[in-house]
């Protein structure tokens, strides 16, 4: 992530005007427990480091490590809640938040996290993940049912239009919940949710895609047959990789693909048990009772129309 020099200066000043060098190091260690200011700056341990010097070194290090946004989030939490029972008001933090907003990040006060402003930029790493970062994530796998038959039956322009519409529906549902579309293959998609209420976002995005397709198939579908999908939602640890194909090696992503392929009926979303526990009851009630299918504990959501 590229940080403007004015933001760097502002962050340095905020740090040395608000907290001591010792506390700066403690806050950095909340992100990187191995952080050693003396080692990083090359100053021997028996030499004192001034607040200004510490702030300069730390800001540079967190930028080099790609942790700038995480560090500002840490400072926001410390500023609001204190640290180990003591308050640490940080002067000028609001100014940094505003500056980051101008740089294309939205600050969500509910989760105290920064999100890439999707109106300006949508990058698969949310503008803040680095190759190799491990995070807890919720993932959504979507598969177009009978994709090959649809392609054979329909003219290319119609199939392109329908798939572009489907992609727009998926994009809208995923991006609106701070998710990212990591892969879009011929017959399906993979979306990830890492920030905010990720499990809830994955479930709601899947429900919305099915709801939207219900109307799309009746009102706008240019094909002779309805576009039908299977969706699976799952949660677990993910190691972020810049290469999309490397992402597929993650165990969580392999599992979600298995749930979709072997346990999900057509026009249905399945949610794995570990994801489902994080969802509020008001949404849980819209799912069928839990079933043991293909070795997975699954709950299903589908649109069941009342019998006439």
């Amino acid at each position, binding site marked *: 992530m590229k940080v403007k020099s004015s933001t760097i200066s502002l962050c340095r000043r905020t740090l040395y005007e608000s907290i001591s060098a010792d506390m700066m190091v403690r806050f950095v260690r909340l992100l990187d427990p191995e952080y050693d200011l003396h080692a990083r700056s090359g100053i021997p341990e028996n030499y004192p480091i001034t607040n200004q010097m510490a702030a300069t070194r730390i800001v540079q290090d967190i930028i080099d490590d790609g942790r700038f946004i995480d560090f500002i989030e840490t400072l926001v939490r410390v500023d609001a809640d204190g640290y180990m029972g003591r308050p640490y008001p940080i002067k000028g933090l609001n100014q940094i938040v505003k500056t980051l907003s101008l740089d294309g990040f939205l600050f969500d006060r509910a989760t105290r996290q920064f999100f890439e402003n999707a109106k300006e930029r949508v990058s698969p790493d949310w503008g803040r993940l680095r190759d190799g970062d491990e995070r807890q994530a919720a993932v959504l796998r979507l598969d177009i049912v009978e994709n090959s038959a649809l392609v054979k039956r329909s003219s290319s322009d119609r199939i392109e239009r329908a798939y572009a519409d489907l992609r727009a529906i998926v994009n809208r549902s995923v991006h609106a919940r701070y998710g990212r579309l990591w892969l879009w293959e011929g017959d399906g998609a993979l979306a990830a949710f890492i920030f905010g209420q990720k499990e809830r976002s994955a479930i709601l995005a899947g429900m919305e895609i099915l709801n939207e397709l219900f109307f799309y198939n009746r009102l706008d579908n240019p094909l002779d047959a309805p576009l039908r999908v299977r969706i699976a939602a799952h949660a677990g640890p993910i190691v972020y990789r810049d290469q999309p194909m490397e992402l597929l090696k993650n165990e969580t992503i392999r599992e979600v693909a298995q749930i979709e392929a072997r346990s999900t009926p057509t026009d249905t979303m399945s949610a794995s048990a570990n994801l489902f526990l994080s969802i509020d009851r008001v949404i849980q*009630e*819209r799912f069928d009772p839990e079933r043991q299918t293909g070795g997975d504990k699954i709950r299903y959501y589908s649109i069941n129309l*009342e019998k006439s």
Partner: protein
Amino acid sequence: MSVFWFALDNQMPPGFESAYGTVVHLDTTDLKNHKPTPGDFSYLNIAGLDGNERRKTMLAIRRRCGQTAWGVADPQGDLDDPAMVFFMGACDYLGPKVFTQGVDKARTRDVRAYALFRLECDDTRASVPAPSSSSAGADAEAFGGWKVVKPGVIYPFYFLFIAASAQMNLKTRLGESGYIAFRDRLRAQIQQMLAEADPLLWMETDTTAIYLIPSTARTGRNVIIACLRLILGTPIFGYERLGLPFPIEFTCAMHHGSTEFAVPGKTGTIVSDAVNFIFHLGAKCAQPERLTISSDVDRSVIPPSLRELFVDAGVFEGRSLMHSRRFGAI
């Protein structure tokens, strides 16, 4: 007053021109640009039109002349059921016998009296007569915006009733300030969902709202789609957009009719059968998680692909109803 005669040829009943005075002869293709003024009488001669053209031109004259008097001339008796033209809103039918026996001034007087009666009975009572209710859905003219709608004038509208409810009283559950915030969010979100139907929040009580929707085919179609989307998406809508930690239900009802327009907040003196009906329909008859539609809403505004979602719902206060099937029932 002008009399317009739309036909492929100039064949008219004997005595027609002398009985009506000057008659303007026009081709049927001129119907698409026809703009009659109050008091004008327009006739469509369907001779020489095949079945499809006849249907299209009859719909066109109904659309263009819905607010004035119009009639159908059928010199060869092509229509199997002439009464249909009256059901469509016509005020006169010139059949084969009229073309042989001719038209006199007495008949002309009777037609004028009937046209006046018909337009007055059309629930409009306005200086500018409104189209009959049966023409509601076919009025495809663009809506000029709510600024051009004048208070005190009677217009045809779609009326949309929306009520939000939960298993327990929302105000009790949310508290006074929470309820006010909820209402503000709900109002904004519903307005956004109905945006493509050009809605106007017209009346509001604690738990219900009446929206006015312009009487055009486009807005009628869009409001039906928006309501069905709202009902299907209620769990997401309530939980995510309204921030409610408990389930909520929406009751939607739709009616078409005419009423005097008044700006929102100044509707206390409105006396209208249509407004009474939509309130009664929404409060007494419509069920949660369904869109209930009265028979005054032209069925043609329901997209054909969505008609399977609706079933007959009986009769209420003399009007037959249909409502949408519920989503989520197993």
